């Protein structure tokens, strides 16, 4: 069986800590990029412009309908072929692009849902006052949609923490990558339980934080 889980944790905790921080960082970058992208895609879908909305729909459907791991492989091997500039940057950039593109598809649905949840009368009242479409969106619709969007975005970040475990496949230093490192030291099973435990703690803590914030939000309503 080899050394116990506790032995492994005591000896190698800095590796796990570095991995966990890597996970939080990559998930944050992916969701931040995904939020920018997702907002754009959601607005394209709601724009009423046939072409823009078709592009946005296809994008969201393709990225949500194919496995993230496949998307990462395509980004890793294919993107640098068509975008030569990517050859000059760290390989991790292509993987992060894949994560952000994937997240953007889910975030666009979150934002679209949040916008659609705002009563249609709000839009009509704003437009009938003579507010422009842009002002109506930025001053009336989005501020109200945000209340529904923020908790879902937080949940997207929580899922992304788990999704980034695939980035270790591409040598990105996140939590799952510590398994690869320690496997070289003939530790096959102990790191897995430690890793699972850390993921669980991170997601549980964040999930409860979101619940707390949601409660705050609904009180102020």
């Amino acid at each position, binding site marked *: 069986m080899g050394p116990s889980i506790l032995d492994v944790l005591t000896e190698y905790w800095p590796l796990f800590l570095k991995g966990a921080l890597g996970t939080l960082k990559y998930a944050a970058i992916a969701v931040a990029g995904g939020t920018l992208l997702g907002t754009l895609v959601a607005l394209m879908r709601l724009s009423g412009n046939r072409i823009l909305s078709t592009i946005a729909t296809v994008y969201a459907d393709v990225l949500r309908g194919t496995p993230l791991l496949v998307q990462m492989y395509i980004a890793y091997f294919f993107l640098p072929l068509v975008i030569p500039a990517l050859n000059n940057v760290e390989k991790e950039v292509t993987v992060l692009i894949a994560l952000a593109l994937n997240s953007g598809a889910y975030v666009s649905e979150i934002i679209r849902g949040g916008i659609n949840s705002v009563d249609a*009368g709000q839009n009509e009242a704003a*437009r*009938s006052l003579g507010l422009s479409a842009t002002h109506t969106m930025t001053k009336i619709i989005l501020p109200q949609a945000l209340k529904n969007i923020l908790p879902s975005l937080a949940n997207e970040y929580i899922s992304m923490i788990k999704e980034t475990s695939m980035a270790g496949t591409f040598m990105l230093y996140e939590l799952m990558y510590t398994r690869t490192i320690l496997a070289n030291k003939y530790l096959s099973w102990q790191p897995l339980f430690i890793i699972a435990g850390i993921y669980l703690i991170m997601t549980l803590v964040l999930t409860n934080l979101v619940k707390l914030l949601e409660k705050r939000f609904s009180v102020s309503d």
Partner: protein
Amino acid sequence: MTDKRNALIRTVDLKKNFNDLEVLKGISETVYQGEVVCIIGPSGGGKSTFLRCLNMLEEPTSGEVYFDDEKLDPKSTDIDRHRQKIGMVFQQFNVFPHLTVLQNITLAPTLEKKIPEEEAKQTAMKLLKQVGLEDKANEYPRKLSGGQKQRLAIVRAMAMEPEVMLFDEPTSALDPEMVKGVLEVIKDLAESGMTCVIVTHEMGFAKEVADRIIFIDEGVVAEEGNPEELFNHPKNPRTAEFLSQVL
């Protein structure tokens, strides 16, 4: 006498379909400056749709709408500018819940008419005073009753200094005890010379404030006339039938 007055809104053979459903089947009407017009009629007859065509919340299927003798064209008219001249009050109030009472009123004037913040606030406070809401200025709408919300919606529209006010069943969503206060505000407005087009089921109110009643039934103007005439001596059997149900 009509030729002497200044036509503010004019529709010519206005038609509106929703897919296969013909909702407006050709309405030609004129609203004159300073006139108070009440629109009555059975549910589903097209009253709201007619009102919404006037400020282009709905795009007519055919026919024309003129405002100040200018023909509205969904493609070339500056829709926002047009709507700034037309206040609209909805059955469901549609106040902005994330803004304070004061911000509800100052938002559009400051954003779209570039009125300085301070000036907009002063105007808003004056308007709030007129409808007895000055002590609510810094509250959020969730603290207001239905009647107070509707009065806020009215002054929010007034703050844009529109040339005409459209009301779509402004009291239908209110508890009975709130109706009177809101109708009084509208009445004051009407008496101050504001041009008003009011869709209402409050026949007593219509009789009192209207210069003219339009009875819309199944997408057409089935009858119109001054309140006295229309309520007491309806010419169209459909009008008589409708009135017998609501009076």
